[in-house]
């Protein structure tokens, strides 16, 4: 089984979010970039298939050369090789088109991705990729087993869980549950050394007109101070929620 894991290169959750150039660009100054947390669950599940079922695991990112350390980290965790599609990832549809090309050229059976990235939160790339490829697709996946060419998948639905079965090839939008958080892997020294020698292939992007463009960023309006209510005066809280906030 050939697995492709899509890796987004995103600011660490605790990063301060600021913008430059008249609020048109994200300010990367002092920002630490990491593997998108949702993608980490996908990558760890892929490692399980590698170790237990002999799968090969390729990681891919669409981005400029600054994303390579993130791909190296994925290699250090245990992926066999990496591909970087050399283009700015500005539009979800554009990224999905590039990834589809990688999947077609590489003949992958299973594509694992996080269900969204924590920077633009578009949540669109996995579903778009599946649509372009005409592969089966399951989103918000919290469990995945593969037996031959058949996958048993559990996914989160509003208010519960659903168990599905589908044939490969398949695209998965994953999240916590695909593996547990305690099972996520941190690269060890040996992994980091080995990652330096693993192939990281850079391929050029195919032509595709972007369908959306970012015109500017805004920060939320500063929030008013928290109104403190005395613990002995619950009536006041109820009155505030009813008369002022109008939520009860």
């Amino acid at each position: 089984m050939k697995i492709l894991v899509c890796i987004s290169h995103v600011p660490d959750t605790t990063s301060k979010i600021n913008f430059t150039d008249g609020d048109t660009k994200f300010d990367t100054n002092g920002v630490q970039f990491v593997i998108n947390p949702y993608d980490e669950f996908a990558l760890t599940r892929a490692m399980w298939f590698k170790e237990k079922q002999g799968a090969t695991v390729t990681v891919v990112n669409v981005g400029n050369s600054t994303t390579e350390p993130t791909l190296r980290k994925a290699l250090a965790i245990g992926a066999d090789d990496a591909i970087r599609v050399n283009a700015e990832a500005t539009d979800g549809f554009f990224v999905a088109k590039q990834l589809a090309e990688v999947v077609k050229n590489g003949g992958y059976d299973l594509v694992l991705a996080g269900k969204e990235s924590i920077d633009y939160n578009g949540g669109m790339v996995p579903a778009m990729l599946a649509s372009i490829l005409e592969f089966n697709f399951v989103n918000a996946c919290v469990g995945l087993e593969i037996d031959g060419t058949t996958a048993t998948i559990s996914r989160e639905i509003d208010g519960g869980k659903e168990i599905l079965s589908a044939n490969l090839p398949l695209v998965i939008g994953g999240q916590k549950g695909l593996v547990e958080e305690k099972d996520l892997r941190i690269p060890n020294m040996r992994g980091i050394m080995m990652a330096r020698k693993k192939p990281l292939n850079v391929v050029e992007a195919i032509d595709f007109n972007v369908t959306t463009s970012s015109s500017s960023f805004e920060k939320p309006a500063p929030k008013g101070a928290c109104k403190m209510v005395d613990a002995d005066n619950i009536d006041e809280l109820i009155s505030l929620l009813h008369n002022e906030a109008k939520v009860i």
Partner: protein
Amino acid sequence: MSVLVYAESSEGKFKKVAFEATSYGKKVAEQLGTNLVVLTINADETSELSTYGAEKILSVKNDALKSLNAKVVADVIKQASEKEGASVVIIDSSADGLTVAPMVAVSLNAGFASNVVALPSSASPFVVKRKAFSNKAFNNTEINTTIKVVGLAKNSYGLHENQVSGSSEDFSPSIIESGITSTSIDKTAGAVTIADADIVVSAGRGLKGPENWEMIEELAEVLGAATACSKPVSDMDWRPHSEHVGQTGKPVSANLYIAIGISGAIQHLAGVNSSKVKVVINTDAEAPFFKAADYGIVGDAFEVVPTLIEKLKSFKANNA
């Protein structure tokens, strides 16, 4: 030309997001000087949509669509868009909506903006404001394609009544093969889900143990709210994983979010910050959550919550 809204229903009944998307779609249609068409699948009372401005309703009734498969539904939306010559397609952000919308965009070769929180700031170019960086910022996105797909964030626009006389038309699209078989569905019967809830009551480690959740459940019941919990609580198996809200858990975008004994780690806040009103109850006055909250009480949950339940019960009785 038209604006097409997909109004989602479950077991024949519209979800609240269906009315929100219809309210939003009506305004977008006015902005563009065109008409609104609303697509429904296996919904019973399609006339309910006309309260929110739906003049034309396309009603699909087909048993093959009883269990919703994203690929099949996306194809039905595509067929409806083509039939109506839709220039804007609006889909909500429920679990199904989030899966369906990008597929619709691909099949219509349309640009797609998700998590949109406001009406287009300009119709030409078509610019919408969307959430980004886990609620820490907004991005104004221009959609450049002829057809545009908009994913509307939950509770971002609200319900706006706009009674019109609507007409419903039967629509019989062709149904494609899904390729995926659903073998079982496990849903908690009766309970309010975090995704649908207007009010969410959430509790953290401050509750000291799973045996103390009875009062949280009671508070939720009084408010008609869903129950949720912080990550450590689900990690320790005090509560099921499905209740975990925050960055790696479920997002919450409720009208009222009540956090009890939750300190407010940045990962938690990232997942709940888009709730409109946040109330924090915590013994520690220095808990970071107070900085993100609208109303706060420094106090012991074991004293505050039972009092809150009693007071709310009498409030509800007097305001029923």
